[in-house]
């Protein structure tokens, strides 16, 4: 055994700072996700299916789609993020890596922030990138599509951040799906209202800066507060398992 592995109480190393630890968590989650690509495709396929089925099921008329297209895209994006939430901590919980994450000598909320960021990059960001294509399909004009993508870009990280709290809270339960939705959907409603409201205002030619500022405030609030709540919820869930 080499000398540096001698057992003695050591000070908390400054060599591995919180940033390094966050980077490691992020990189690991992305790597795991790319080894299991079908899980990555699920929310995307769901998003595409809902948006394509709407014109078929309700009305393919241009006037209807122009009016409700942004709403359809937003609802579909919201639901597909919701669909992916249960996986956020579940696999890590089952294989024990979540315990090891909690036991890292780092601030837990930062590690959760990195984990949630990875979740957004893997689910929310692809939705944002796909939105223009589907926007064209539902006859939104260029300006509306741009605003829609902007609202999704600001809004989907909020969905991931809030969702992480619910996912952490329901971790110990066997059938968490329904409870997770019930817990999270009420918190998603303001994001949805302002997301679609922004696009509607833009379509009428009204200024949207105020709407976007409010959504930005949601995002700042979610990024700064949600990781603390998720970390606390995780501790409770692990404590009861």
């Amino acid at each position, binding site marked *: 055994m080499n000398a540096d592995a001698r057992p003695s109480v050591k000070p908390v190393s400054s060599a591995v700072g919180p940033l390094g630890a966050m980077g490691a968590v992020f990189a*690991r989650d992305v790597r795991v996700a790319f080894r299991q690509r079908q899980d990555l495709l699920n929310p995307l396929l769901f998003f595409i299916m809902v948006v394509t089925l709407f014109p078929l099921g309700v009305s393919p008329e241009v006037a209807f789609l122009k009016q409700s297209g942004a709403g359809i895209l937003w609802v579909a994006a919201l639901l597909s993020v919701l669909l992916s939430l249960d996986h956020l901590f579940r696999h890590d919980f089952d294989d*024990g890596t979540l315990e090891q994450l909690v036991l890292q000598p780092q601030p837990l909320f930062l590690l959760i922030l990195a984990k949630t960021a990875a979740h957004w990059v893997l689910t929310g960001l692809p939705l944002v990138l796909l939105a223009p294509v589907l926007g064209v399909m539902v006859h939104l004009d260029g300006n509306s599509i741009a605003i829609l993508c902007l609202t999704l870009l600001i809004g989907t990280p909020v969905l991931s951040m809030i969702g992480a709290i619910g996912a952490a809270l329901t971790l110990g339960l066997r059938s968490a799906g329904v409870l997770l939705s019930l817990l999270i959907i009420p918190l998603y409603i303001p994001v949805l209202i302002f997301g679609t409201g922004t696009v509607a205002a833009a379509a009428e030619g009204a200024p949207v800066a105020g709407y976007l500022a409010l959504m930005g405030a949601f995002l700042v609030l979610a990024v700064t507060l949600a990781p603390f709540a998720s970390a606390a919820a995780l501790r409770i869930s692990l404590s009861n398992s």
Partner: protein
Amino acid sequence: MSEPLLQAIDLECERDERLLFQNLSFSILPGTLTRVEGPNGTGKTTLLRILAGLNDAWSGQLLWCGQPRMAQRESFLRNTLYLGHRPGIKPLLTPMENLRALMAGRREIADGALARALEGTGLSGFEHVPCRNLSAGQQRRVALARLLVADEPLWLLDEVFTAIDADGVRAIEALLQQRAEEGGAVLVTTHHDLDLPGMQRITLGTGGQYER
């Protein structure tokens, strides 16, 4: 070396309205090997999770290096290694990536040291095979390789001998003993017949007795 690393004073834990143990007091000194024993369902795993800081549903006092553990969370976490029932191995990652992830946030370590640790647990040649293609025993060995690169003075090991073959068991026993001789403190739960010289015992299921 006489100051205890971890001290438990009057620990009490209730689970599902059943008292698991109460008035449980013990000290974990550097250079000791302690076995937590008792029949199934008497709270061995729960005790280890409490000591590791994963379970908060307890009352009493836990001191780390003589001071309340709560007040020095990071120092405690940095110097404690917990290996649970669930080994903390991602099936989609290779042993090398898993080991690196387990060390993340603790200290910098070279790839060479990790490779040597995997070799030490008989996994050379499997470094870059996804863990889901390995057997249950081999997956446990990946987690055990973590012990070979550990510099933490306190080890909390829950059922380390599960799914390990006879040679592996002997190797782990030797490792634990060597660790204690070097000045580390080891706490294990096991149903395997473990009886090493100088081993302390914490017996649960009898109202929380503690004997030396």
